[in-house]
Each structure stands twice: as C-alpha cells, then as structure tokens.
C-alpha cells in the first residue's frame, strides 16, 4: 500500500520513521540492529554484526575450514574484555585440544576465570552448556560440537537468550551446508598472515567478507 502512494506526506513519513526507530526488533536493512554486544576488536567486522559486535544472548556459530587458522585469536579480544572488565568466567566446553594455559594467560585471560569442561559425550557437553548459560554467571561459553541436530542448536540459542552471555559454537565446515538457528554464522578461511571471515548469516547485521590481520606467530 505504501508503494502505491507516491505522494506520502513528508510529515507522515517522519512519523513512520519514528515508530520504526522505536521498535528495536524491526530491522530496516541499513545500519545494524540495536542488540547488546561485545566489540570484536575489529572495526570492519563489528560493522557487519548486529549491535556492532559479538551478540550477547545469542548463538554465534564459528565454522573454520580447518583448525589452527586463528579461530581462537579472533575471539580473544572479546573474551579478554569479559574475563577482565566484566570479571565473568569464560568456559571452554569439549575443546578438541588442550587449552594451553601459558598461551591463554599471555593473551590476557586470567586463568582463574577460565574453566575447561571435558565431558565424555556431546550430549553432556550440550547439557553443561545449557546449565551454564541458564545460570547467567558465565560471560562466554565456547562449545565444540559435532552435533548435526538442529534441535540441539535451537536449545542452545534459547539458553543463550536467558544467560546474557556470548555463546560460540565451533563446528566443522560441513555444517555450512545446513541451515542453522544461530544468530550469526561465520565461515573462516586462512589467508596470508590473516584470517578471512565470511559472514554467512547475521540476524540484524549484514552479510559480507572481512580480512582480519593476524599477528604472525613466533
């Protein structure tokens, strides 16, 4: 109907704009939705994400094409802010390798705020993640999951909403083939001294691709 009325008075357009602005749930295609977030430390990436940062209380899916390309270093600035500035715990659930304490400490994460959970099954890892998110104390949960079940991710998304925490799920690149309930999905590819981040999905943000420069190791 709006389309068919080219002579919409300016005053009415302003009123409509005002109404739309007051509705944070309506995404208008430009800018990013005003949702609570934690800055990623990378301005170019922030611009693409809802709320200009990692969304708080929503699921972020990280899909690196292979392990060891900088997928953790990408999160370190936000995790450091949570552990130091907000003094909230950061939980790693079922990581594929040993979180190497000296490296995490050097990256600025206080070790006493870091908890490493290694349950024996994927189902228990899911359960633990939900418990932690629901309790609302931890500031960030990083879960490595092999699940392909949509329902599991949906439950995580719901728990994340309750917990007001960052919630990252790491999955293999194959998961890209299927849709996901996550608010943000990032596919990660290696690049020369950098990490290429493809924003596959960003609810209330923008699609796009960013190069994240990585400090060359050693």
């Amino acid at each position: 109907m709006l389309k068919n009325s080219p002579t919409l008075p300016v005053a009415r357009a302003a009123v409509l704009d005002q109404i739309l602005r007051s509705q944070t749930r309506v995404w208008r295609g430009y800018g990013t939705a005003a949702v609570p977030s934690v800055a990623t430390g990378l301005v170019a990436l922030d611009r693409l994400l809802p709320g200009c940062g990692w969304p708080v209380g929503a699921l972020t899916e990280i899909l690196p094409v292979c392990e060891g390309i900088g997928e953790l270093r990408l999160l370190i600035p936000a995790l450091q802010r949570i552990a130091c500035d907000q003094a909230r715990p950061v939980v790693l659930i079922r990581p594929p390798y040993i979180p190497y304490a000296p490296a995490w400490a050097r990256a600025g994460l206080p070790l006493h705020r870091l908890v490493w959970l290694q349950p024996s099954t994927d189902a228990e890892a899911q359960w633990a993640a939900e418990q932690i998110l629901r309790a609302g104390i931890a500031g960030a949960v990083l879960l490595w999951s092999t699940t392909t079940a949509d329902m599991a991710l949906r439950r995580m998304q719901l728990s994340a909403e309750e917990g007001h925490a960052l919630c990252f799920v790491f999955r293999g690149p194959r998961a890209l083939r299927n849709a996901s309930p996550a608010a943000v999905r990032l596919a990660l590819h290696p690049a020369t001294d950098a990490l290429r981040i493809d924003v596959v999905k960003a609810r209330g943000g923008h699609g796009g691709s960013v190069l994240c420069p990585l400090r060359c190791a050693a």
Partner: protein
Amino acid sequence: MLYLCMSFPQLSLDARQPPADEPVAVTDRRGARRWLIGCNSACFSAGVRPGMDATTALALLPSVRLIERSRPREGDALKSLAAWAEQFSSWTCYDAERHLVWLEVYSGLRYFGGVEVVRSRVEHGLAQLGYEACCGVAPTLEAAAVLARIHDAPTIEGSTDLVEALAPLPMAALALQEDVSDAFAGLGLRTIGQVLALPRDSMARRFDPDLVDYLDRLTGRRRDPRKPFRAPAKYRRTFELLGNVETTEGLLFPLRRILGELQGYLIGRDTAVQELHLELVHDGAEPTRLQVRSSRPLRDGLRLFALVRERLERTTLPQPVEAITVTVDVFVPLGDTQLELIEGGQRKDRDWEDLLDTLRARMGDIAVRKLGLQDQHLPEQAWCTVEGKERQPDGTLPDRPLWLLEPRQVTLLPQRMGMPERIESGWWDGEDQQRDYFTAESRDGAKLWLYRDGATGGWFLHGLWA
C-alpha cells in the same frame, strides 16, 4: 526447664517411607494374631484402619501390601530424629518403645524468639522430612509427652500451674500399663486430675510402685532420670528400602529425608561437610560406592541433595538396590560462606562454585578443570590443572600456541617460518630433552607448532596457533 516432646503416631509406617500411591500397612503380631498398626492414606480411603485384623484388611482391600513391623528400623529413625533435633537444643533424648523424642527448649528460647517459634520450626521440619508428628511443650518430660498425645494441646510453660493445667486433660493420654488404665476406667476416672487426686500410699500398694514414680515425674515431684542422647561423632545413616529399587530415581525420596536429617545434625554441631559417601547395597553384587564432593563446605540439605541427585544420574545400577548408607567421616567448619550477609559479588562467586560442583557431580571430577601454570621448561609440563584459585603469572610468558597437542610424529614436513626456539630440559635429572621449535604452515593454511627432537632428529607436531 521446658521440654518439647514430639510423638510419632505413625512411626512404624513413616520410618519405612512407603510410596503414597499404593496401599501399604504395617502389621504387628502376637502369637497367631496379626493386626495393623499403621496405614497410609491409600489404605484409609479404602476403609482399612489401624487396629484391624490382617485378614480383614486383605478381605477389604486385596491389593494392600502388608509389611511386618521392624523395631530396629523404628529405632534408627528415632535416633536420626534425635540427632536432627540437636539443631534446636543441646539436650535431646528419645524413647524407642513409645516413639517419642524430647528436646529441652528453655535454654534456647531467647535465641529462637519464643516457644511457639521453636515449636512451629520443629513441626515444619518434621513435615519436610516426611513424618507425621504431634508436639507438646511442658516443664517435665512426661507432661510434654502427655500433651504430645493430645491434638492441639495447649503449651504449659510455668511449672507452678502444671498440675492445674494437666487436671482437665483425658486420662487416656497418660502412659499407663493397659491393666492400670482399665482399672482406672473401671473406677470411673476420666481425667488426669482425678488420677492425681488418688492417695499416693494406697496407689503404690494397689498398683505398681512404678506408677507412683511415673506420676511423680509427670508432675515434677521427682527428677526424670533420662540421660541426654549424644549423636555419634561420625555420621552414618542406613536406610533399608521397601522392596528393591531398580532406578536411581527411586532412591531420591529416601535420600531427601536422609540429607534433611544430616542438615539438622550439622547445624546442631555447628559444622559442615565437603564430602559424603553413598553406599548402595545390592543383592548378589558388590555394593555401589559413590562419593559426592563440593568445593565449599555445605550444610544445606537441599544443596547436598541436588549434588547427590546429579551424581546418581550418571550412575548405572548393576542390580536393584536394597539399602542406602550415607556416611560422613570428615567435618569442616562452615566458615562465613553460607551466611546471608555476603555481598553480591561474593554471592556470584559462590553460585558459580555451586554450579561447577553440580557439573562435577554429573560429569565426574575430572571433567571440570581449571588451568594453572608451572615453572617448567618443557611446554607440556608448563601447565597443570588446579583446584581453587591459581596464582597469577609473575614473569612475562613466552609466545605459545593456544592449543597444545599430544606430540605426534609428522613425516611430511611443511614449510617452516621464522627462527627456531630451542628448549632444553632435564639434563640435570637424566631425562635429557633438546628440542627446536618451529612455526610452520600446513597446506590447508593451519599454523603449526613443530619441534625437532635433538636426540632422534624426528619431527613432532605439538601445538596449533588457533
């Protein structure tokens, strides 16, 4: 002195914790006669009542489950109740025959804020433990017991008007031998006042001398010789289940009571626990032994119950369970962690530790880890898992990858980058290690942390610069 007496009219039934939905009755027997002494609500609704003959009950309600009375278990239940009641008083005692537990309340009146407060807290606590009970408060043990047998009896606080207050109460509330009470009824005595009005000398001659002694203790003329109960220094409570329980959920009901009793015991001794042991006895298999731990001292029964429940959820029972034993060997001071005075931040820390305990109980201690540093040269020894808080790193830390791997030998050597870092260790204790660490990039683009072993010349992957 002022005593509170709890009487348990349904103890023979309550001590066994029968399920509420199926009719269960406890029977006693003398010779060939077997009659009901306790019935649960499912029995009552079918018209089956205590005092009924076992055969009559079965005729009325064929599905009723009749269980033989067990005096040892009734004794266990009373002992646990006396230990539980120590949270209200340092002086408790019980009578196993008459199913009574007393506690001295006068010394705690100021602390609790009045006798009615103590009374309502006791009644509330007993209801939570799942016991049907009736309370009486009076200056002597026996007078309190009389009041506990009368529903909605008044509290008698002063000892001067004790006889006067007892006088209008029914004679049936007295703890008399059956033949004595029959004789009194034959004499036309209806109230306690009429019994007390009988001449003492002739009463001793005509009836039992113990009767006079009893009435003297009732009115306070003679001191009651009962000794206070002392709960044992180590906590051990065994509960035999009614029939075998095949699922862990079936254990939760009795455990809730046991841990509620434990809470009273802990408050009474002003102490707390960090570790308790659970033994599940099976028929024809080794008992299942479980350990439940918490990171901070606990005395809250519900919190302990939550931990035990999580622990049970990851337990598979090899056989049905016949009995549960809960033991506590080590007690720790509670500290100030559970007082309600603590601030928001501290409360958050406490809630966080509680959550981790829940996770530990469910997934095992080993699944919940905190990281720490060690002063070691070899990378795999420079970290450790710690309990509690870890010191902050003092010096500057070397640049290391975020993921550490178990060293695995690589044959196809990728492109190396940068200068090697030499790490040597162990030449002083015979475990000589010399390694040159390199960063390399795999064909997929992953940044690897590799080393060449000085002794063998072999290449190993040891970390990922994730």
